[in-house]
């Protein structure tokens, strides 16, 4: 009983803890985040873009929190950034009706991606 309660309290924390393996699948997927469209990523099996920097070694240049924030809203660090704000829905203009109020990625997906990127050292 007591253990059940403890588990229930911990669940939200677990739910958001990033899963690096799921993040890896997401990063290398053809659609989802579309990371490969702009970034080279170690382990990719399809042609990668070069609009953004290669993500090789990104885990030694940024910690997991910074990675999460960069994915969520890169404009916080660089107002001119070309990187879409994957976790922001406010301050956008002329969003197609079906995407309004919805972020490009869920919080869980962003956590998973950050966890994966942190492993790239």
């Amino acid at each position, binding site marked *: 009983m007591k253990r059940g309660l403890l588990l229930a309290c911990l669940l939200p924390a677990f739910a958001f803890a990033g899963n690096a393996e799921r993040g890896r699948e997401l990063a290398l997927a053809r659609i989802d985040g579309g990371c490969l469209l702009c970034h080279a990523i170690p382990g990719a099996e399809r*042609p990668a*873009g*070069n*609009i953004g920097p290669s993500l090789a070694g990104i885990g030694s240049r940024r910690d997991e929190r910074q990675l999460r924030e960069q994915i969520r809203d890169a404009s916080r660090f660089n107002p001119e950034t070309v990187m879409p704000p994957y976790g922001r829905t406010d301050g*956008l*203009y002329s*969003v*197609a009706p079906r995407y309004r109020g919805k972020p490009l990625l869920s919080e869980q997906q962003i956590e998973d991606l950050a966890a994966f990127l942190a492993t790239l050292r």
Partner: protein
Amino acid sequence: MIRAALLLFVSSALAQPHSGSEFTSAEIRRLQASDIENPGMLWIDRGAQLWRERCTGCHGDVSSMRGVAARYPKVANGKVVGLEEKIREKVSLDYESDELLGLTAYVAMQSRGMPVANEATEEQASAGRSAYYRRRGQMNLSCAHCHEANWGKHLGGETLSQGQGNGYPAYRLEWQKMGSLQRRLRACLFGVHAELPPFGSQTLLELELFLAKRASGLTVETPAVRR
């Protein structure tokens, strides 16, 4: 050749315009260059037939249209009018129908090889300019983020072009048919998860007008072949 390749990689502001042709494969350029193999010619034939049926009465031989497309879109009574809109004033045809695309492309082809020479003032093009540089959609990107700041770089396996419209209406391999510049603009807007302005809307036409000003230095390539 080496200089052209270098230019592709020195991408920042638009010091020099580069046609979409330069970003396609040699095979696609070869298709475009041959009036026998260019798939857009099927639409041109349809347009030529329509011209004979519907237009010769007033306009005579199509050669009277030489240079017209190089100057479109135009501004009349404060509104932007594209070549398609001008044709639709006289001939009732649906947007993106084979008939309208054919007739538009047939008229535009009369300017093939001529320099794009839009006569609108900077002020008239300012609405389109603002739209071009405005971030929009769920991806929060402006046209300029890809086609001005990053052309020549790779988006996945593709090379980003400058997004020049001098070949439209164009046969696009992705569409397996001819399509208008408005359709191409809508495809980009769809890609950044933005609202899609209707065909013939001022939003699209203002953008077309700005693109025509921006294409100064290029020549009309209709019917171009694109990826």
